[in-house]
């Protein structure tokens, strides 16, 4: 906010306290005059008005109230009455005291407000950079995961292909070398197994987080994701709406992983919604409890929906409808939900939008 905007805002804030101050002065003058309250008491009462106005208004209105207070004091309460003149000590001290009070208080209030504003802006910046970070780390994690899977699998694959070539050459030589061919074939079998071991390791890696499981408040988890993605949603003119089942019992799981699932779904929904007409861009996140002691989370968007053909493949790794997508988000989300003993499904809402829904067993159920 520039200082000019700031002053304009201050001006608007000052109107009401100024009028209230003026009214208070008039009323006090009337009452005190009527009941012959002595000038020193009136002077102190007026000081209270000046303090109160200064607390709420900027310096200029506070100064005007100070001046008015001084004029009323001088005219109605200090001898000689009904004249304006500097005849008594109070006539000199009161205006100085009023103005000084107004100046000091408005100044203090101003600096307090300014630091408050700065704090707020810093918080906003923090929130938006957090959302960015979440997105970047999501992309990075998936990119790294995809790249390392590709590399890990590619090594034994290369060995298999090369051994296959070598094996054929040993066999089709003028004098076939069966021992060499056999050795190459044995290596093919071995490397095939090692490729499959890598797949097992990756699956185990995705399941590994078992140790970090505990009761998770889904509503709170979702609230955190909403806070993280709010700025991104706003940037795409998408409204994020939550409909929480307030008494939703906790589920058993890894908070960070479940957050990742919700984050994936919400970011996907924002991207899908941003590609449609600007009006009515909305994402609704609902939590509910299903009869079978399961918690349900639904993320519905008003986006372009999913065609039937894509619907069959969206959970497959490396399947993406986005130009820059890796196609790992939903695949990873599904494996996280499944490793929690839940289910993640997608449905295309007729014509517009899509709904992703996952269920998770409740914490209590696990304890029994």
């Amino acid at each position, binding site marked *: 906010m520039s200082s000019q905007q700031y002053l304009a805002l201050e001006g608007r804030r000052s109107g009401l306290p100024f009028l209230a101050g003026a009214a208070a002065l008039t009323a006090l003058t009337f009452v005190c005059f009527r009941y012959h309250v002595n000038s020193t008491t009136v002077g102190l009462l007026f000081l209270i008005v000046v303090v109160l106005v200064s607390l709420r208004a900027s310096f200029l209105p506070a100064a005007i109230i100070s001046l008015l207070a001084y004029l009323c004091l001088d005219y109605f309460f200090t001898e000689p009455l009904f004249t304006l003149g500097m005849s008594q000590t109070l006539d000199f001290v009161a205006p100085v005291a009023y103005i000084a009070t107004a100046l000091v208080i408005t100044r203090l209030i101003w600096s307090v407000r300014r630091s408050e504003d700065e704090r707020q802006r810093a918080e906003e910046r923090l929130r938006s950079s957090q959302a960015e970070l979440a997105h970047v780390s999501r992309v990075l994690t998936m990119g790294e995961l995809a*790249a390392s899977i*590709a*590399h890990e699998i*590619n*090594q*034994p*694959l*290369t*060995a*298999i*292909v*090369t*051994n296959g*070539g*070598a*094996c054929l*050459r*040993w066999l089709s*030589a003028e004098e076939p*070398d069966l021992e*060499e061919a056999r*050795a*190459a074939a044995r*290596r093919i079998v*071995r*490397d095939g197994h*090692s490729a499959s071991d890598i797949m097992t390791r990756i699956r185990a890696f995705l399941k590994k987080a078992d140790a970090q499981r505990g009761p998770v408040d889904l509503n709170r988890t979702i609230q955190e994701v909403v806070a993280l993605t709010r700025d991104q949603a706003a940037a795409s003119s998408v409204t994020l709406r939550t409909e929480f089942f307030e008494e939703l019992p906790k589920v058993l799981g890894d908070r960070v992983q479940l957050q990742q699932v919700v984050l994936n779904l919400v970011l996907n929904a924002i991207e899908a919604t941003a590609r449609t007409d600007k009006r009515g861009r909305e994402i609704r996140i609902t939590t509910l409890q299903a009869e079978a002691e399961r918690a349900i989370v639904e993320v519905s968007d008003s986006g372009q929906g999913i065609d039937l053909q894509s619907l069959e493949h969206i959970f497959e790794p490396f399947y993406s409808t986005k130009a820059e997508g890796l196609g790992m988000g939903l695949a990873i989300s599904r494996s996280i939900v499944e490793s929690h003993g839940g289910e993640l499904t997608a449905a295309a809402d007729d014509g517009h939008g899509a709904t992703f829904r996952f269920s998770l067993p409740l914490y209590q159920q696990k304890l029994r």
Partner: protein
Amino acid sequence: MNDQRTTVFVVDDDLAIREALGSLIRSAGLAVETFASAHDFLEHSGADAPSCLVLDVKLPGLSGLDLQKQMTNAGVEIPIVFITGHGDIPMSVRAMKAGAVEFLTKPFRDEDLLEAIKDAISRDDVVRRQRAVVRQLRERYGSLTPREREVMSLVVSGLLNKQIAAQLGTSEITIKVHRGQVMLKMKANSLAQLVRMSERLEILRAETILGEDSD
């Protein structure tokens, strides 16, 4: 090229790939030696027969590209066939610019690799022959006296004996003797051959002259 000592060196950190490549290259009738790291390869003494290096780009410690650079700086000339898990274009451009013979992405066709290896070996063969010729010429040139070298440079620049004698302040007969010595020691059968030899030695001569100047 079918020299017994022709060896293909393979550097890859993955044992499965080393074994597979070893078998494939042997099946093509070539000798092969495998190494798990760039350091292991560097410790091995250089080959004295036409050879070639099959090098993984991504190696723990010293990477394939670093090894290439290090060998170039050290003056080790061995043609390199790069293999890589994920070859991006800038990486392959860098490798090829630095003199790589081929840049193959895993998994590659065995024919492609063997083709690249044979290509690399025949390149190395040519380079080695050329280097051997130059080395021989240098030796012959080294046997010339300083005066003979002077005479040789004037002869190949096209001057007649008479002109050379005038320039060096000596008799034509003396120059004739020197010239005969030059032809004999350089084993040149004709003036044309001597000129070609001097062209090959051009760099060397420039270096020698520079070296003498700075003394």
